[in-house]
């Protein structure tokens, strides 16, 4: 009996060890991959450096311009994320409503903005709508981004709403709940949970798409990068910095998204 128990212990111990070994192996593999990529990048960099004289000192001198660009990109993106999410909510509710008129309005909105290039939408809002309503560059960019990304968010949230089990809605009716109660406490929380991953993806797209606002000379990150490049002649360096900042910015969003997903996941 005792021997058996001990054997059992041994088995579980070795299983634990096996699992630990697996983890160590995984981490080692990741370190090797990272080292490989760094090595490759270094080789690449040195090869380019032979023909292109990298001058990072110049870029460092323009630090404040990058920061200013980052700030504007952050502001445009943050405001646009809020507004486009709001638009997505409103139009997705309209699209899933039973009233034909609301459905049509929402469909037309999505149809227009999913079928126009963002660049054109930005030009239209700044040079068209902007001149009539006296919008400055910032708000023209916000308006364009919000309308454009809002159309995608509409579709994302709509599919989330439609993914909620109709049986649950029936059950809510059988309890005697009102339509608005059912929407707010049964459908909506689940729809948001279901559509969270693609929504975060769309928000990341929005941050990257905001670089197109440089065409209306809004001083966001891409625009600043170009200015630094042209005035310092260190174009390559400047755009590398810009790309790096975008990656950092969007990474924060994905980490936030993963945190929210974990928090909203069912137990």
């Amino acid at each position: 009996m005792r021997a058996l128990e001990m054997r059992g212990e041994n088995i579980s111990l070795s299983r634990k060890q096996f699992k630990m070994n697996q983890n160590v192996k995984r981490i080692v593999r990741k370190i090797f991959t990272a080292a490989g990529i760094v090595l490759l990048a270094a080789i690449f960099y040195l090869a380019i450096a032979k023909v292109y004289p990298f001058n990072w000192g110049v870029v460092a001198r323009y630090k404040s311009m990058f920061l200013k660009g980052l700030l504007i990109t952050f502001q445009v993106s943050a405001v646009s994320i809020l507004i486009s999410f709001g638009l997505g909510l409103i139009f997705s509710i309209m699209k899933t409503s039973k009233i034909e008129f609301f459905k049509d309005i929402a469909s037309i909105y999505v149809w227009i903005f999913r079928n126009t290039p963002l660049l054109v939408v930005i030009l239209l809002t700044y040079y068209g709508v902007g001149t009539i309503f006296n919008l400055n560059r910032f708000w023209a960019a916000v308006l364009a981004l919000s309308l454009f990304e809002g159309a995608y968010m509409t579709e994302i949230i709509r599919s989330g709403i439609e993914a909620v089990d109709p049986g649950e809605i029936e059950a809510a009716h059988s309890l005697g709940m009102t339509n608005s109660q059912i929407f707010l406490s049964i459908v909506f929380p689940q729809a948001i949970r279901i559509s969270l991953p693609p929504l975060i993806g769309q928000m990341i797209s929005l941050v990257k798409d905001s670089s197109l606002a440089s065409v209306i000379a809004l001083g966001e990150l891409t625009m600043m990068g170009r200015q630094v490049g042209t005035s310092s002649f260190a174009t390559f360096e400047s755009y590398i910095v810009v790309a790096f900042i975008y990656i950092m910015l969007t990474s924060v969003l994905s980490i936030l998204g993963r945190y929210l997903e974990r928090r909203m996941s069912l137990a």
Partner: protein
Amino acid sequence: MSTIVSLRNVRKEFKGFEALKGVDLDVESGEILVVLGPSGAGKSTMLRTINYLVKPDDGEVYFEGQRLSTATLKELRKVRSKIGFVFQHFNLFSHLNALDNVAIGRVKVKGESWESARKQAMKYLEKVGLTDKAYNYPAQLSGGQKQRVAIARALAMEPDVLLFDEPTSALDPSLVGEVLKVMKSLALEGRTMIVVTHEMGFAKSVATRIVYMENGQVVEESSPQQFFTFPESDGARRFINSILERV
């Protein structure tokens, strides 16, 4: 005894398929009515017309004397809150734990606070033997546990009648017993129940009356003893035989 549910010549058509072809039915309070019949007979549709989850094309449904076809939405919701409905596929709210699934009706429909509704909900979970699963989400429960939570959810509204739509049909055979046990205990409390099921044992031992349906019509109504020993219609005889042969 008073009549709690009445159907008068209820008809319902789904895209050219006549699910109900004029059903008449009266259910007295305290009855355990078991509805039997082959699939496609209109049993579930009939059950759903009682709380107007399915609105009949023609005919009248009365709940406690109130005619539902002329009821306002508000009156209809009031009626629904007095009718407990247990679904074949449980239909628990998957974003809420067991306790909140049971409590939410009291909060949203009866206007109770979450705190007191949860306290009450715990009592109903105790009734179905699931207090230890109160904070589990539906995805973490077995089919039998889900269905017992769904029964607790229906009970929490303190309904005048309970409707069961094939409550054990989606369950693993090994989990059917725990749900039937709860249903039996409810029957012993003297609750009014209308049960659509294929559980012949339950029908035989618990039902006070059997209604046999076929092709959208009520074909036979009788006591369980009479129904299982001397079925009147050919259809009922075939149905009983087919079930006995299955063994």
